[in-house]
């Protein structure tokens, strides 16, 4: 064996650790993808950078937890009910607040949604503190399977599958259906689409509700993995915004692809240079901003 190859062989971590971190990276990536997808959909239609997205994700997890603890409603119904509840909250938010600021600069939407996020977080923190509430894995998905080179917990496999399905479903809805063509057209020229007889304001409201529901769905999926805490949203949303910047604002494919890729990059960094694992995404973001300010898949805003 040549000398240099021996060095690399020594530097290689055991495969168990490598695949373990790869899996954690994929799981994180699954959440980054779902959350940045919602942000991209909302930004495309409303031109608003939805800083309340993390809070809506957290609300999804809390809804599931509430439902289980107070009403005895389990994981599977929550997977449907929590997104609907959070979508309803999102629709009210759009109708009552966001509607009035579309004509203003992006900054106002950002400030408004950031304020809303702080209020939601603050209220829940007041009642539940900042420590996490445990939420157990549904019985059907406990356990793990041996893949030969690693153990794959069933619930984590389900999260990756569900995330891919949701991302594909959303992409299909927007890029391949009649309703999606209305959405794409209204993103380009809302007043003309409305002059064809389509109720664009209602479509905008429903899009925001859909984006918020998507965040809540991610929140329910995350509850058994990360615990349910008022701060879980603000922890993840900062990274998600970096993902969105890298992928490009308003691009569906960009949001999903960069979500998964960056999750994996983060996981691999934990193996090879753990000190940088928390910052690597921001380093990538800085480089992308310097080289390709619109992001990899982005349109110029």
């Amino acid at each position, binding site marked *: 064996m040549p000398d240099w190859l021996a060095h690399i062989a020594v530097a290689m971590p055991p495969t168990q650790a490598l695949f373990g971190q790869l899996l954690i990276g994929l799981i994180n990536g699954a959440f980054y993808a779902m959350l940045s997808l919602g942000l991209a959909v909302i930004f495309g239609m409303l031109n608003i950078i939805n800083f309340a997205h993390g809070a809506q994700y957290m609300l999804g997890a809390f809804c599931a937890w509430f439902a289980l603890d107070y009403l005895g409603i389990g994981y599977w119904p929550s997977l449907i009910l929590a997104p609907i509840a959070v979508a309803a909250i999102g629709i009210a938010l759009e109708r009552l607040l966001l509607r009035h600021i579309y004509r203003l600069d992006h900054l106002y939407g950002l400030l408004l949604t950031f304020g809303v996020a702080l209020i939601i977080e603050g209220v829940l923190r007041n009642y539940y503190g900042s420590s996490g509430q445990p939420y157990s894995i549904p019985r059907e998905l406990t356990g793990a399977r041996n893949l030969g080179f690693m153990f794959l917990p069933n619930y984590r496999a389900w999260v990756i599958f569900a995330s891919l399905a949701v991302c594909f479903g959303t992409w299909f809805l927007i890029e391949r259906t009649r309703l999606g*063509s*209305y959405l794409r*057209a209204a993103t380009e020229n809302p007043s*003309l*689409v*409305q*002059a*064809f007889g389509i*109720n*664009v304001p209602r479509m905008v409201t429903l899009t925001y509700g859909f984006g918020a529901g998507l965040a809540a769905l991610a929140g329910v999926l995350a509850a058994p993995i990360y615990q349910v805490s008022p701060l879980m949203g603000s922890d993840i949303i900062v990274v998600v915004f970096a993902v969105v910047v890298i992928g490009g604002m308003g691009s569906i494919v960009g949001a999903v692809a960069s979500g998964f890729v960056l999750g994996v990059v983060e996981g691999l960094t934990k193996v090879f240079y753990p000190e940088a694992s928390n910052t690597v995404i921001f380093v990538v973001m800085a480089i992308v901003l310097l080289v390709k300010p619109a992001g990899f898949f982005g349109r110029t805003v």
Partner: protein
Amino acid sequence: MPEASVRQRDLLRVQDLHAWYGESHVLHGMSFTVGEGEVVTLLGRNGVGKTTTLKAIMGILPQRRGSVAFEGRELVGLASNRIARSGIAYCPEERGIFSSLSVEENLLLPPQVRPGGMSVEEVYALFPNLAERKRGQGTKLSGGEQQMLAIGRILRTGARLLLLDEPTEGLAPVIVQQIGAVIGALKQKGFTILLVEQNFRFAATVADRHYVVEHGQVIDEIANDRLDENIGKLHEYLGV
């Protein structure tokens, strides 16, 4: 309803229509009518308010006052999607082809507002170029094809009144001729058309009547069959 009374009926009646872009007052009391089955043009120089009139009728310009009655129903105050649903279709000057949609998606975009619109096959028969390129991106079409797409997509909706904003602008003479033929065919099919034009030679080949617009008002009305005797006046109005 007897045929004759239908012909005479005013489909669109615009009275004392005012409109604003922010602070600037653009329409100063437009008044005109379009009868059922007629092709009527708004002629006038650049910036006199012809496009604004169409936008105000459609409700795209929300700051408006006065009266726009379509089939006797008042439209001022309605949102533009409601106006479209009442049976009016609009083809904007910039054509408004969506770049994120394929040709066919562009064609299928405007929803049907009334029964009796043309089928997709009929639109393709009218504009064979579009059929050949239906999978392509809408904005990759040539200017003339984009114009055909912009007209073709509103024929499906079942709307009986079409507002066409300078459909011949910037197009080669052979395409202009083709569009003229299409407008003639649409008139034969019973469509009512309000056409904004700067090119009165083209307008003369397709229209029944012309309104001359200046400073956001109608200043004259000329029947197409009396265009020759008024040609001097028209040259003066249009500054050609």
